[in-house]
């Protein structure tokens, strides 16, 4: 299963917008992009999912350019509680086995 590439860690301050970019150069036609958030001692939690262009929900936005070789998760006005590991995953619409990479550890400071 193909993985994605994302920064190991990022630092931010409360109230800032955070953008985490993920590379998936060999993305297949059937693949969609999903982002999960994980806090210590908890299971991953779904944030957002998209196939192309822009998707927005109440917590984040996901930008996927036309070539779909990368995607960017945007977290508006982060707070301390957004400190977590964020995973970018690609998945085949016909197959539900997700492949988790190393994730991006986001540290939000006051």
């Amino acid at each position, binding site marked *: *299963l193909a993985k994605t590439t994302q920064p190991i860690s990022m630092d931010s301050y409360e109230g800032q917008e955070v953008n985490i970019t993920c590379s998936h150069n060999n993305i297949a036609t059937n693949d*969609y992009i*999903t982002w999960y958030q994980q806090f210590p*001692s*908890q*299971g*991953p*939690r*779904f944030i957002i*999912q998209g196939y192309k262009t822009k998707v927005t929900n109440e917590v984040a936005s996901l930008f996927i350019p036309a070539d779909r070789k990368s995607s960017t998760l945007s977290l508006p006005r982060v707070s301390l509680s957004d400190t977590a590991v964020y*995973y970018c995953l690609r*998945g085949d*619409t*016909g*197959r*539900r*086995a*997700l*492949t*988790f*990479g*190393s994730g991006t550890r986001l540290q939000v400071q006051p």
Partner: protein
Amino acid sequence: EAGVTQFPSHSVIEKGQTVTLRCDPISGHDNLYWYRRVMGKEIKFLLHFVKESKQDESGMPNNRFLAERTGGTYSTLKVQPAELEDSGVYFCASSHGGGTGELFFGEGSRLTVL
């Protein structure tokens, strides 16, 4: 609505012993998945049930691992005999349908093999 629940939250056993982990998915979710993170490694897929049938078990590491989902409700993952390298956190997830859509994960069962 209750989320995905896993039991036990933490289990400590000795090498060679048997452990059974249980997962109760969200009611009505036909799809159930097992994942695990062994120490220092990434979260990896183990297998996928659709109701009581194994849809994909390509991630099961070896025949010491046995997953069941009798009746298509809760699932168990048995490790017999446990080895040191089986230590890690075992996550269960469920979803309503196949294809796209989110997986709902439990908080995981931490297994420590001494």
